[in-house]
C-alpha cells in the first residue's frame, strides 16, 4: 500500500480547517473533553483521547497503574476500537477531572479489582466514537462515501491509499463527534484477548518509569516525620535543639501526626530526626497488646449476650443447626497485616502562592487532591495532582495521610518539599488488615449437603477508619471544617453499632448452596486503625470458609473436591474453575512421596478462582512446591496479565499465610522492616500454573481474586501432610 501524497485540494482543505480549528477548537475541546491540556490543532473528542496533526495518539489513563496491568489493559481497549497498535499509543496518567471517575465508584480511584469491568464499555465507546469521527472527517475531506473509508493499524485506508489519522484531525475537530458508534464484536477482536508483552515493561526494565518518589521540582528540600510509637497519640511537647544543629537541617516543624525535620537531603533529615526528643500522650491503644486483644476477642466470641450485627440471615438462620446429621464447629483466627508496598509512602509538594502541585502515586487521586485542599486550605481548582506509577498499592495508597503531612510541612516551612517515609514509618503507620476471631458452625445432611451455615465473627471494622480519612478529603470545601471533621468521625460508631461493615461478611457465606445461613459480626476494636488490604474481607474470610469446608467434607467422609462440587450447584463459574483446576493439577492422582494436595475455591470481585497447593512438611517447616490455579473472570484482555495477577496474588497470599503477622506490645507495633516482617523470597516461591476458563462474558476482576483461596489451599494440604488442622494464621506447625 502506498502512502498517499497530499493533493493541492486536500492541502487547502486541511490547512483551512486547521486555521478555523484553532478558533473553534478551544471551545469544542473544553466542551467535549477538558481533562487534559489542549494541544493546538489536535482533535480532542473526549477527555480520554487526543490525536495530533502529526499522528500522535494520546490516551489519558483514568486508573492508577500499581502493577496490576491496567495501563496495558485499558490502552488495549482504546487500541481495539481506534484501530491502532497498542504500542503506538502515547499513554499518560490522567490528572484529576470529573470525566475520569470510575463509573462504578463515582470517584476517581482505583481499587476493588473493578477497573477493567467498569471501563470495558465506556472506554471502548469513547474510542469507537473517535474512530467514527476520523472516518467521517476523512469521507468529507476526501469526498468519498463513508463505506470506502476504513481504519487499520493507525491508518485511514481509502481503496489503495493510506493516510495518517493526523491528516483529518482538523476537519474532525469541526464536525460533531458521533455517539453510540457500534463496537467491534468479540469475533472481530484482534487486540483484546491477544497475548503480548505488557506496554510498561520497557520503562520498568530500564529504570525510566517514574514513580512518586522520583519527582523532582525546583528548590526541593527533603522531609521526614517522626510519629508516635503508639498510633494516634497527641504530641505533648518536643525538643528540636539537637536536631536543628545537625548538618543540612533547615527546619523542624510540628504537624498533626508528629514532628517534621526538613533538610537539604533525605539522609540529613533522617539522621537529624533521630536526635529529636518527643513526649507523647498515652492513648487507649497503649493499654493493648496482641495477647490481650486475642483474649478480648475470645471473651466476646463466647459472650452470647453480645449479639453483634447481621451480615446475612437466610432461610431459618441457625435455628435448625442441631437437627443436621453432622454438626461441626471450629474457631479460626487471622492477625493484623501490613501492606508493605515496595515503594514506601512519599509525596512531593510545590507551593506557588495560592497554587499547590502534588506529585505522587495514588490509588485515589481525588482523595489525594482533597487532602491538599482540606489540610492546606487551598481552593480545589488550585490543586494540581501529578500522578506517577505506584510502587505497589494493595489498598494502602490513596488515603490522603501522605498528602496531608507533606502539604502541612510545605506550608509551614514555605519550601518545596519531598516527604519520604522510611520502611519503619511505613510498617508502623499503616492502615492494617483487621484481625478477626471467628466461630464457624455448620450442619451437614447424611448425603453431604450443607443445611445450615452459622458464623459468629469478632474483630474491628474497616469502614470507620476509611471514612475518617475520606470524608475530610472528599467533603465539598464549602462545608465548615469542624463539621466535616465531626462527620468523618461518625463512621466508626455507625459501623460499630448499626450497620455491619461489608468487609466483615465478604465471602464468608457465599459460594455454597446452603439454604439456612446466619452470619453475625461483633465489633471489638482496640483502636488500631485498619484499611483495605489486597482482597479486603476475602483475605481472611476465604481462609475461614475454605478450611472449614474441608473439615465438613472430612467429617462427612466425602472427598473434598466432590463435597464442594455437590454443594455449589448454583455456582456455575466456580464449578467450572474447580473442575478445571482439579483436572490440571491431577486431584486424587499419586504425588511424589511426602507431597500432598490441598484445594480451596472462592469467588471474589466478580471472578471465581480455584487453587490446589502441593505441599510437603520438613520438621515443622511447610514447603509449598506448586500451586495450580484456575480462574473464571469472563472475557480476558491480556491473558499474560491475568496469569501474572493470579500468580502475584498467590505469592502475596503465601507471604501472609506463612509469615504475615503484625503484633503489638503496649500499643507499639513490633514489626519494623523486612527482617521481622519477612516477605517470601525467590527460593521459597512455589511454581505457579494458572489456567483461564474460556469465556465471552463481561470481564471481571483479577488483581485480588487470586489471593483468597491460597491460605486455605495450603492449610488444607498441611492437614493432609501432618494431621494438624491449623486454624490460626500465619500457619505454624507445632
Amino acid at each position, binding site marked *: 500500500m502506498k502512502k498517499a501524497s497530499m493533493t493541492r485540494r486536500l492541502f487547502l482543505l486541511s490547512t483551512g480547517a486547521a486555521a478555523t480549528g484553532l478558533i473553534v477548537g478551544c471551545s469544542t475541546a473544553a466542551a467535549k473533553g477538558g481533562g487534559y491540556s489542549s494541544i493546538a490543532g489536535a482533535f480532542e473528542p473526549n477527555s480520554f483521547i487526543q490525536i495530533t496533526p502529526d499522528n500522535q495518539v494520546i490516551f489519558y489513563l483514568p486508573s492508577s*497503574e*500499581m*502493577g*496490576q*496491568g491496567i495501563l496495558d489493559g485499558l490502552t488495549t481497549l482504546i487500541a481495539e476500537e481506534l484501530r491502532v497498535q497498542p504500542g503506538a499509543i502515547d499513554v499518560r496518567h490522567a490528572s484529576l477531572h470529573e470525566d475520569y471517575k470510575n463509573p462504578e465508584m463515582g470517584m476517581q480511584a482505583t481499587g476493588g479489582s473493578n477497573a477493567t469491568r467498569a471501563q470495558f464499555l465506556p472506554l471502548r465507546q469513547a474510542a469507537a466514537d473517535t474512530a467514527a469521527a476520523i472516518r467521517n472527517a476523512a469521507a468529507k475531506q476526501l469526498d468519498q462515501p463513508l463505506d470506502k473509508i476504513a481504519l487499520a493499524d493507525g491508518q485511514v485506508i481509502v481503496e489503495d491509499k493510506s493516510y495518517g489519522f493526523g491528516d483529518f484531525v482538523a476537519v474532525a475537530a469541526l464536525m460533531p463527534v458521533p455517539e453510540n458508534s457500534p463496537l467491534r464484536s468479540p469475533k472481530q477482536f484482534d487486540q483484546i484477548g491477544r497475548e503480548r*508483552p*505488557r506496554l*510498561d*515493561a*520497557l*520503562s*520498568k*526494565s*530500564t*529504570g525510566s*518509569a*517514574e*514513580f512518586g*518518589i*522520583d519527582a*523532582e521540582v525546583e528548590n526541593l528540600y527533603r522531609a521526614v516525620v517522626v510519629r508516635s510509637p503508639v498510633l494516634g497519640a497527641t504530641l505533648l511537647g518536643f525538643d528540636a535543639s539537637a536536631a536543628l544543629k545537625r*548538618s*543540612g537541617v533547615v527546619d523542624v516543624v510540628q504537624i498533626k501526626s508528629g514532628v517534621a525535620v526538613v533538610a537539604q*537531603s*533525605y*539522609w*540529613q533529615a*533522617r*539522621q537529624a530526626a533521630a536526635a529529636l526528643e518527643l513526649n507523647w500522650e498515652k492513648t487507649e491503644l497503649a493499654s493493648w497488646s496482641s495477647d490481650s486483644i486475642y483474649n478480648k476477642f475470645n471473651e466476646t466470641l463466647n459472650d452470647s449476650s453480645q449479639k453483634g450485627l447481621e451480615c446475612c440471615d437466610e432461610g431459618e438462620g441457625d435455628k435448625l443447626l442441631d437437627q443436621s446429621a453432622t454438626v461441626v464447629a471450629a474457631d479460626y483466627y487471622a492477625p493484623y497485616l501490613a501492606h*508493605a*508496598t*515496595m*515503594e*514506601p509512602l512519599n509525596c512531593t509538594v510545590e507551593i506557588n502562592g495560592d497554587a499547590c502541585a502534588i506529585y505522587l502515586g495514588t490509588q485515589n487521586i481525588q482523595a489525594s487532591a482533597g487532602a491538599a485542599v482540606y489540610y492546606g486550605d487551598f481552593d480545589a481548582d488550585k490543586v494540581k495532582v501529578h500522578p506517577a506509577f*505506584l*510502587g*505497589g498499592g494493595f489498598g494502602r495508597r490513596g488515603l490522603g495521610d501522605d498528602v496531608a503531612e507533606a502539604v502541612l510541612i510545605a506550608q509551614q516551612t514555605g519550601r518545596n518539599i519531598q516527604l*519520604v517515609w*522510611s*520502611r519503619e514509618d511505613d510498617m508502623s503507620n499503616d492502615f492494617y488488615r483487621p484481625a478477626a476471631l471467628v466461630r464457624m458452625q455448620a450442619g451437614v445432611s447424611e448425603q453431604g449437603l450443607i443445611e445450615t451455615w452459622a458464623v459468629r465473627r469478632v474483630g474491628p471494622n474497616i469502614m470507620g477508619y476509611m471514612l475518617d480519612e475520606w470524608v475530610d478529603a472528599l467533603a465539598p470545601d464549602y462545608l465548615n471544617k469542624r463539621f466535616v471533621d465531626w462527620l468523618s468521625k461518625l463512621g466508626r460508631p455507625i459501623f460499630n453499632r448499626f450497620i455491619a461493615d461489608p468487609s466483615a461478611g465478604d465471602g464468608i457465606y457465599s459460594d455454597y448452596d446452603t439454604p439456612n445461613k446466619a452470619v453475625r459480626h461483633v465489633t471489638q476494636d482496640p483502636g488500631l486503625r485498619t484499611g483495605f488490604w489486597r482482597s479486603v474481607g476475602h483475605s481472611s474470610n476465604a481462609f475461614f470458609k475454605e478450611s472449614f469446608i474441608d473439615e465438613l467434607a472430612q467429617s462427612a467422609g466425602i472427598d473434598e473436591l466432590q463435597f464442594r462440587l455437590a454443594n455449589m450447584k448454583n455456582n456455575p463459574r466456580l464449578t467450572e474453575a474447580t473442575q478445571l483446576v482439579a483436572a490440571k493439577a491431577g486431584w486424587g492422582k499419586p504425588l511424589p512421596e511426602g507431597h500432598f494436595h490441598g484445594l480451596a475455591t472462592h469467588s471474589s470481585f466478580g471472578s471465581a478462582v480455584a487453587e490446589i497447593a502441593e505441599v510437603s512438611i520438613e520438621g515443622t517447616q511447610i514447603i509449598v512446591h506448586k500451586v495450580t490455579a484456575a480462574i473464571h473472570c469472563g472475557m480476558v484482555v491480556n491473558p*499474560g*496479565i491475568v496469569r*501474572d495477577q493470579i*500468580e*502475584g*496474588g*498467590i*505469592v*502475596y497470599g503465601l507471604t501472609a499465610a506463612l509469615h504475615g503477622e503484625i503484633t503489638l506490645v503496649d500499643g507499639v507495633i513490633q514489626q519494623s*522492616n*523486612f*527482617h521481622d516482617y519477612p*516477605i*517470601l*523470597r*525467590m*527460593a521459597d*516461591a512455589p*511454581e*505457579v500454573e494458572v489456567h483461564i476458563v474460556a469465556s465471552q462474558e463481561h470481564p471481571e476482576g483479577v488483581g485480588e481474586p487470586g489471593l483468597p483461596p491460597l491460605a486455605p489451599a495450603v492449610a488444607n494440604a498441611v492437614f493432609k501432610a501432618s494431621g494438624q488442622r491449623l486454624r490460626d494464621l500465619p500457619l505454624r506447625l507445632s
Partner: protein
Amino acid sequence: MISFQLNNSSVQVDIDPDTPLLWVVRDHFKLKGSKFGCGMGLCGACTMHVNGEAVRSCTLPISAVQGAAITSIEGLGTPDNLHPLQQAWVEYSVPQCGYCQSGQLMAASALLAKNPNPSDDDIEMAMNGNICRCGTYSKIKLAIKSGAEAMRAQGNVVEIFDPVMANKEAS
C-alpha cells in the same frame, strides 16, 4: 571530595561522607532508577554494581566508594540499547509495579557476569536478597535464563572487573 566512576563517567561529590551511595546517585546525580525500599540492605531495590559486585547501595556510605566503578541501572542499558537481560525482561513481561526491577536486574546482571550459565540454585542464591512484593519471581528466573542464553549465543565476553588492572590503566 569523593571521586568515583559512575556509569563510566568520572564524577566528584562533596557530601557528608556517611551518606549512602543510593541517595547520592538519586538526589545528587538525579539518576532515579535505583530505588529506596528498606534502608537496611534487606530488599535489594537499591542494588548497584560496585567494581562489578552487586551491592546494596542504601547502606554503603559514599566514603567507601572512593575510586570505585559504580554502575546503576542507567548504566546497564538504555531503551535504545538494551542489555540482553533487559531485553528478556521485556519479552517475558517481568515487571508488574516495577519498583524492585532495577535492583533485580542489577543483581541478575552481576550474576551473569560471573556465571554465564547459572543453574536454578545459582539463580536463587544470587537473587534471594531481592524482594518482589508483586510476585514476579518465576518470570525473573525465566528471563535470567533467557538473557543468559542470548548472551552466550552472542558470544559476549564475560568481563571480570579487576580493580588492580583498572588502577594500573587509570594511572
